[in-house]
Structures are given as C-alpha cells and as structure tokens.
C-alpha cells in the first residue's frame, strides 16, 4: 500500500492533490444537493458540461468556456421553483440529460477532432490531471467553495424553509440562484478535470454517508468532505497498487464506504431498538 502512495506522490502529485480538493468541494455542494432532493441535477449538469465542451470544440472556442456557460445556464434554469402540481423536477432533469447527451454526439460528429481526443476532453480522468487543471481548480473551484461557506446561513435557511426565509427578508430567489450558479461552475470545471461520473459520485455518495452518521449540519459537512477526500485517497492508492482504472476505483471505494456506514447505522439502530425494548 505504501508503494501505491509513494507512486502517487512521485508520479501523479497533480492527481493526488486535485482529487483530494475536488472531492471535498464536490461533497460540500453534495450535502445541499441531497438535502434539496435534487441529486440527479449532478448528472444533468455533468452532461451539460460535456455538451458545452463538445459545442465549444465545434465552434472553436475554449472548451471550459463552453462547459461553464452551458452548465451555469442550466443551473440557473433549474434553480427556478417549479409549480407544485405542474412539472416534476425529475422530468426536467431527465429531459435536459437526454437533450445534452444527444447534442454532444451531434457536436462531436461535426467537430474536426478525433473520437479519442474528444472523449478525453468530454470525460476527464483524474490520473491525467495537468498542472494547468490544478491552476484552474484553484482559481475557480476553491473560491466557489469559500463563497458557499461564507453564505452558508442564508442558503441553509432558504433550503430549510423557503417561505419563512422570505418572510424573514432573506432574498430566497437570489440565494437559490447563487447556489445553483456555484454548483454549475463546480460541476462544469470538475467534470472537465476529473470526469462526469466521478463528479456525480462526489455529489451523491459522501454526503449521503455523512447524513447517516450525523444530525448536525456542521458535522455533516465535515464528515462529507473528509470522507470524500479519504475515499479518493484510498481509491487512488488501490488503483496505483493493483493497476485498476482510477475513476471507477474511487467510485467503488466511495460506495463501499457508504455501504459500510449504512450497515453500521442499521446495526446501531437495531441495537438501540433492542435496548429500548428491554
């Protein structure tokens, strides 16, 4: 195992530090995505990011610009409250996913790039992270995460009880838009750097495990970010040690972690129930 870690530190330092930072930021946003019950927004936004990259290649503009514009536009659209009895948000997310996936293929076919080249741009891989990706991450993702932390209270209040927030003079629409634009930015950049599947994993899995482990928001945020970083490190070490693909290995290690937490939670609840019966 130490060989794997040494290999990472010496040969893939960008992947190591980028993986740890992006996983923590993804999990931080993921807590709110799960609490808002819009987990599949992660898939839809990731696909929009890929579509933006493909569109940018076709139009010969920087891929990150295409990904950012399309994803943040989609996030702004999805931040709008849907009518209670009209369109379910899931249906909207599904439609965006399918539309973006179809358009991506269309753009790729029209672009002058080779399939493998386009694939690597559309679906990033953590192990292939460059120093340029590290700079982009530090310039865009870290400020996005800090913004969320600074404005945690109003955003939490709006997500907890929108109407009461408005009565308390919190600009609910503004804070929802801020959150979803930040989320769009994070998903666009992170999907481009580490890949859509891994980004979706960071949004959904560590936050779910953290919500099982604690009932305090501050602790949930700490557990989600630290467990995401831990699973990334574990996945990277396993991947380097036994030569498996990096992104799927991290996803599997995250899901194993979630399964272990769920199992322990189940056993703890069972034990408490028995204690109460006695």
């Amino acid at each position, binding site marked *: 195992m130490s060989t794997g870690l040494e290999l990472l530190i010496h040969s893939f330092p960008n992947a190591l530090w980028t993986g740890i930072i992006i996983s923590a930021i993804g999990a931080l946003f993921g807590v709110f995505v799960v609490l808002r019950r819009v987990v599949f927004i992660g898939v839809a936004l990731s696909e929009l990011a890929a579509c933006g990259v493909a569109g940018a290649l076709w139009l010969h503009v920087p891929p990150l610009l295409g990904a950012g514009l399309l994803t943040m536009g989609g996030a702004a659209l999805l931040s709008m409250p849907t009518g209670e009895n009209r369109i379910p948000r899931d249906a909207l997310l599904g439609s965006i996913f399918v539309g973006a996936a179809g358009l991506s293929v269309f753009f790729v076919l029209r672009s002058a790039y080779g399939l493998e080249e386009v694939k690597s741009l559309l679906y990033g891989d953590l192990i292939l992270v460059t120093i340029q990706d590290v700079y982009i991450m530090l310039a865009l993702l870290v400020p996005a995460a800090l913004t969320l932390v600074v404005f945690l209270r*109003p955003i939490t209040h709006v997500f907890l009880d929108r109407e009461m927030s408005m009565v*308390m003079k919190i600009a609910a629409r503004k804070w929802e838009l801020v959150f979803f634009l930040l989320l769009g930015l994070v998903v666009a950049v992170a999907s481009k750097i580490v890949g859509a599947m891994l980004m979706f994993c960071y949004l959904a899995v560590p936050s779910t495990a953290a919500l099982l482990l604690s009932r*305090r928001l501050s602790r949930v945020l700490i557990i989600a970010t630290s467990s995401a970083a831990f699973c990334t490190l574990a996945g990277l070490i396993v991947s380097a040690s036994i030569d498996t693909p990096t992104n799927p290995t991290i996803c599997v290690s995250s899901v194993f972690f979630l399964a272990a937490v769920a199992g322990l939670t189940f056993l703890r609840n069972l034990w408490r129930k028995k204690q109460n019966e006695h």
Partner: protein
Amino acid sequence: MENPIIELSNVEFSYDKQVVLSDVSLQIRRGAFLPFVGPNGAGKTTLLRVILGLLKPSRGIVKTPFESKSPGYVTQLKTIDPIFPVTIRQIIEMGLYPELGLWHRPSPAQNSMIDGIMSRFSLLEHQHKTYGELSGGMKQKTILARALVGRPEVVVMDEPTSELDEKAESDFLNFLASLSHDEGLTVLIAHHGMDQAATLAEGLCVVNRGRVSIEAGKKPNGNHEPCACCHCQSHESRGEQNEHRP
C-alpha cells in the same frame, strides 16, 4: 377603524387567469385574534400570503407594519424536510434572522431570548434534537417558538393544526387566543374548523370564492358592542360596518 395594524384596499389576486381574491378590503385591529375560515381552495392561504408580502396582488393596496418589524409566520409542519440536519435550536434561531449581525450569529442577548422561548414551550431539554426526531406536537411548538422569538407584533399561521389530533388542536388554539388576549399580539390564522375557531374569536373572516366577509364569533367581547377586531368591505358589504354581535 382608527389605526388598523393591517389594511387591505380593493385587493385582487389571480393565478394565471383564475381570480382567487376579488376586490378584498379589510382592516384588522391591533391585538385581534382573527381566524380565516372557509372551504378548501377558498383563498384563505392566498389571502394570508398576500398580507405577508409573499404574493403581490394584481390590484389594490396592502398596508402592513412588516417593513419595520417582520411578522411571525407559522407554516405547516410538513414545510420543513425532516432529513434536514438542523437542531430545533437552530430552527428557532431562524426567527431572529433579520436582527442577527454580519455573520448571522446570535449575540448573548439573542441566545437568552432563544433560551427564554424554548423554556416557555418546554423545548429546552430537546434543543439538540433535530426536527425529524420530534413528535407532531413538539414540531408545532418549535415552529410557534420560531415565530414568536423575534417578539413580532403580528403572527400569521397557515393551517397550523392540520396534523394535530383534536385535543392538541384545541389546546393550541386556546393558547393562541390567550396570546392575543394577554399579550396584545395580533394573530391571523387560516383554519378549517369554523365552529372551533368561532368559540375563541370575537369575529371570523370568512373567505369564500375569493370574497371576504366578517361573521360574528362566539366569544363575548365584554362590552356587548359590535366586534371591533376587524372591518371588511367586499362586493356584498362595501360601505357597511360589521353588524355581527357576540
């Protein structure tokens, strides 16, 4: 009515093309306990949301003191998602949000206010529980404590008893009526049970098909004069004083 705390003049509200409130004029006295009753879909909740400023009327004027002092708002229990990992103390703290400082952290004095209201509702020993861990009655107390912690002049409640059993509902309504009577709080409550609300109030605001009328409650006002808790002008009663007597 002199110096009403809330005044609506010729208010109309529509969802798309469906008129929900039609030419509503209403004055509410400071310290009134006023139930808004009527069948489902009559427009009770819409009227309260217009008063709160959550909905903008398509026509008419709404005058409230809410710019200077936020009202207390008691939402339905299901509004808060039980998976949310916040303690009931944090939920109650939300009621002080407009008064919190730059970092939105309560000062020692505000923490004392939170302790005080939790103690009043016997919530202090449960302060570290989350909303999902509470019974229906405790949830109700939490939401009410959040509404009252900022010491508002007006408390607005949207069907707050819809998930309580009959006894708990009766106790809750009695408590609200006493808040209005003893502490001079103006209480506006959307409620489904007309008879139950009538026994506690001097007057009832009956909302039906978007129109509003005032009916007499069964609670005596002591001076055997027409109820002065509110005054209403609608299509049918424009220009007439309330004639209901206890």
